[in-house]
């Protein structure tokens, strides 16, 4: 029999496996933070967590509500500021940026600014915040988002945060640091990465019980699909146990789905 888990638990467990031990990760609140916390308690005890407001390597006593609240530097090694964080990313010391996303396109560009006309938007979202900075400056950007046609779109209403922009070479052309860019997109249906030749989105693996066609159907653009598509290993008992008992006992995040 397989263990029961919900969509959010699945995404967090799967995503956490991509955070290597001994690396640095800049996270937002919510799922990305929970993911990094899980990774620390699993295979990456030496994963260094950074928060944009200035918190460095805290001993997180619980899930922070804000990327700036006091938990983000609780027993941290340093309580700094925004400039310290972003310049550390710009110097090349931060390996992963872990973002959420509203709209995303085939090159991993993200929209979190507006739906509709910029000057008179149908929906005004917060804007970049630190997302554009992290995705520009960190080496590898991971994105966690629900998989649907309304989110995976052919054309973004607004490119808030850079993925590979218009494809291979475009980041470098724009002046973004060479070697940086989107790494993995983790959704409730699949894990997606980017084909080297084109830097376009590709299915890396589909989650247990999810058909490739289902992923295609929920994506508003042409996905690259290899002949053999692997199945994502499901969350393990241990992952789920630690996630539920230690990372998010109040179910603030995993209770959402």
């Amino acid at each position, binding site marked *: 029999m397989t263990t029961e888990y919900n969509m959010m638990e699945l995404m967090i467990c799967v995503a956490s496996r991509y955070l290597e031990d001994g690396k640095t990760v800049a996270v937002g609140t919510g799922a990305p933070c929970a993911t990094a916390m899980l990774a620390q308690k699993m295979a990456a005890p030496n994963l260094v967590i950074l928060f944009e407001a200035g918190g460095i390597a805290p001993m997180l006593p619980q899930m922070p509500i*804000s990327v*700036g609240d006091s938990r983000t530097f609780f027993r941290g090694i340093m309580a700094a*500021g925004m*400039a310290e964080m972003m310049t550390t990313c710009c110097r090349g010391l931060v390996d992963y940026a872990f973002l959420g996303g509203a709209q995303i396109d085939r090159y991993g560009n993200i929209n979190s600014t507006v739906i509709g006309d910029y000057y008179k938007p149908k929906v005004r979202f917060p804007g970049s*915040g630190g997302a554009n*900075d992290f995705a520009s400056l960190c080496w590898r950007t991971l994105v966690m988002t629900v998989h649907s046609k309304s989110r995976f779109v052919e054309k973004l209403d607004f*490119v808030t945060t*850079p993925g590979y922009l218009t494809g291979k070479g475009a980041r470098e052309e*724009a002046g973004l640091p060479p070697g940086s860019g989107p790494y993995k997109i983790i959704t409730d249906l699949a894990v997606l990465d980017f084909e080297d030749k084109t830097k376009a989105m590709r299915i890396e693996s589909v989650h247990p019980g999810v058909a490739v066609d289902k992923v295609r159907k929920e994506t508003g653009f042409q996905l690259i699909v290899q002949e053999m598509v692997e199945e994502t290993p499901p969350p393990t008992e241990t992952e789920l146990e630690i996630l539920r008992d230690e990372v998010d006992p109040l179910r603030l995040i995993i209770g959402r789905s």
Partner: protein
Amino acid sequence: MEVVEKGLNQLFMDPDPDKAREFFAKKSRSMTDKRMTEKEAVEKFVPNGCFLAIGGFGAIRIPTAFIHEILRARRKNLGFYGHTSTHDFQLLCAGRCIDRVDIAYVVGLEARGLSPNARRVMESGEVQVCEWTNYALTARLRAAAEGVSFGIIRSMLGTDTLKMSGARVIECPYTGKKFAAVPAVWPDVGIIHVHEADIYGNCHIRGISVSDLELARAAKHVIITAERLVDNAAIRINPTRTVIPYYLVDAVIEVPFGSYPGNMPYLYYSDEEHLSRWLQAEKDPEEFKRFLDQYIYGVASFEEYLERCGGLAKMRELQRLEALVDR
């Protein structure tokens, strides 16, 4: 200097460092008692139409008490520096105080969701906007703090965020590489909530400083609200701890729990229940009006607001939360 690409939106403030120097040439350097009330400080330093920047991080170490006073004083047509703003922006939108915003992060309250009222304001098209990123807005303050007209960063490049900003893409005179040049900004007034200050404005902050050190050095007028006042000797005994020197400061206001309902590191946690009541109330404009009368317009002072929010008992609870005694 050749400009490779230019953001389409206009700047709200002049990036000329010599105009700023003329202002700072006249600013007093004397150590005088700068204590005053919120009312007096709003009267003196926050006229209609001025450009405002607020310290802290949206709902962490924010000068809530002072922002309430800005609402009660019915200030209008303010410009706002929207870096990492959450509850502070929500408040200014509640008062319909602003007509132009430099945006890095607005409308949202992070994991708590989006502010319905702030959305109404921003989607009305009545507010002039210019797009940036959190770091870009820190870098603009930093350039001003350095007394120069621009700074360079590697964010924003290649995106609509740059296209809809006032940034300009330039090439490095050494490497030829492209950078986003962001213009210095000297806000008319910066409001920062700190842990301790003396009556002259020398300040201590515990925990993250966010962009407040840059803001204190960039703003033409700096208003400090402090959890508590300390004697000047408490500053001089350990000058390494001073993060804002008095000569940058124009007003000092002692406001215990001044960041409520926001978090004040090491002192009290945020009141999430009250913050979600805000989001709830905002859904219906009529109810929101009543809500604002009850909590802001209908109270004479911040103390009264604290009382209406649960008073000392609530503050004690938030102190225990912060101390991780109650979880």
